[in-house]
């Protein structure tokens, strides 16, 4: 019972942190997914330099630990004369990381659309871009959605990394409470419960989404 009252007492302090964690996740997805799609399209482009740029962004975003990418931007941007808040830096780093992973899923989705669809679009008189937009892309997105939703859950967990550059998100709020009360075990258990519960809810939503997207396959 004591534990519950203690936890309830901390919630007002933790909630603003959770809001920032969710904001960070949301923005990283909002920027990261379109960025990933751009990288995927660039990787398939005929113009070689586009392929190289895409390769560099993807390999750096996926090859470096997210923490190193975060520090890299945090310590180097100010030297380049760009001063950003730690939250903005975290959003850029997480978006890059997300985009790099997402691009692989988008590429797999694009590759899974049969070539005949593209040929049919051309035969129907749709120009390259229109054909891509209204014929290829919707089919590719349907294939890429389940892995992307799974990635979104991982991005939420990854948002905890922003703690290291002093973004006032859930982990740093928990750390603050811990250093004041010395109840580290209790406060981190509560944090773990919050992350765990939300992740489970997200995973449940992903599962429902997968079932919904697979409906047209079940009917046949």
């Amino acid at each position, binding site marked *: 019972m004591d534990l519950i009252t203690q936890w309830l007492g901390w919630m007002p302090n933790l909630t603003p942190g959770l809001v920032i964690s969710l904001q960070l996740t949301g923005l990283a997805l909002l920027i990261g997914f379109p960025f990933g799609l751009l990288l995927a399209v660039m990787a398939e482009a005929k113009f070689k330099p586009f392929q190289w740029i895409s390769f560099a962004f993807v*390999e750096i975003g996926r090859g470096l630990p997210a923490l*190193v990418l975060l520090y890299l931007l945090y310590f180097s941007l100010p030297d380049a004369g760009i001063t950003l808040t730690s939250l903005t830096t975290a959003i850029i780093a997480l978006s890059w990381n997300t985009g790099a992973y997402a691009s692989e899923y988008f590429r797999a989705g694009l590759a899974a659309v049969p070539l005949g669809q593209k040929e049919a679009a051309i035969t129907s008189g749709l120009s390259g871009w229109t054909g891509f937009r209204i014929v290829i892309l919707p089919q590719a997105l349907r294939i890429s959605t389940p892995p992307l939703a799974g990635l979104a859950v991982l991005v939420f*967990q990854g948002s905890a990394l922003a703690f290291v550059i002093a973004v006032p998100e859930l*982990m740093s709020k928990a750390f603050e409470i811990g250093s004041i009360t010395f109840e580290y075990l209790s406060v981190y258990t509560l944090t*773990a419960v919050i992350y765990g519960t939300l992740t489970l809810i997200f995973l449940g939503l992903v599962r429902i989404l997968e079932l919904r997207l697979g409906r047209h396959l079940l009917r046949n």
Partner: protein
Amino acid sequence: MITQLLTSIAQGVGLTLYVTGASLLFGGLIGLVLVGAARSPIAIIRAAATLYINVVRVIPPITWLFLIYFGLPQYALRLSTLQAAIIGFSIIASAFMAEIYRSGLLSIPDGQREAAHALGLSPFTTVGHIITPQAFRVALPAIATYGIGLLKDSALASTIGVREITYYAQQSAKQTHEGLLSFVVAGALYIIISLVVALVARRVDLKLRRKIGVL
């Protein structure tokens, strides 16, 4: 400048490899127990294993590390940073390794077990000599991929003060004001280690495939 940075940051390579290797080893062993428990005939053991795997996976790694490093000393269980990191990553790795083993086991047709039974092999011999070698071969690429993921996750150990690659990169970034270069060097080290691990895994995989005559 860059050689100076490289020599100071490369000091962390040893501990990065140590944390990754030890966690993969312990996690791999606990994972074996878990996958055994998940296939146990007793429902409660099965449920406990599934619960453990899910609880571990839904909590971010950094929260695990902080919980162990800052939380446990409250109960007089004082751990060094290195111990805390290895315990934390072993717990995380065990859940993921259990899932990898499970998919490896699922790929072995039931006929193998039945054939072993028909030949009069004991269940113990069947698991040791028939199932495990085949399942391991299937699981190896996934284990290597996870190992590389764990290598990158091990950067988190720097947040509780383990002196690995990221820790030294942070130190030199602060001391030399060469933030970009320090973390470029650190990133390059991670990528080089990942590439080496991937190459070795591919060679072992090829060797195992040749041995059984696939390819």
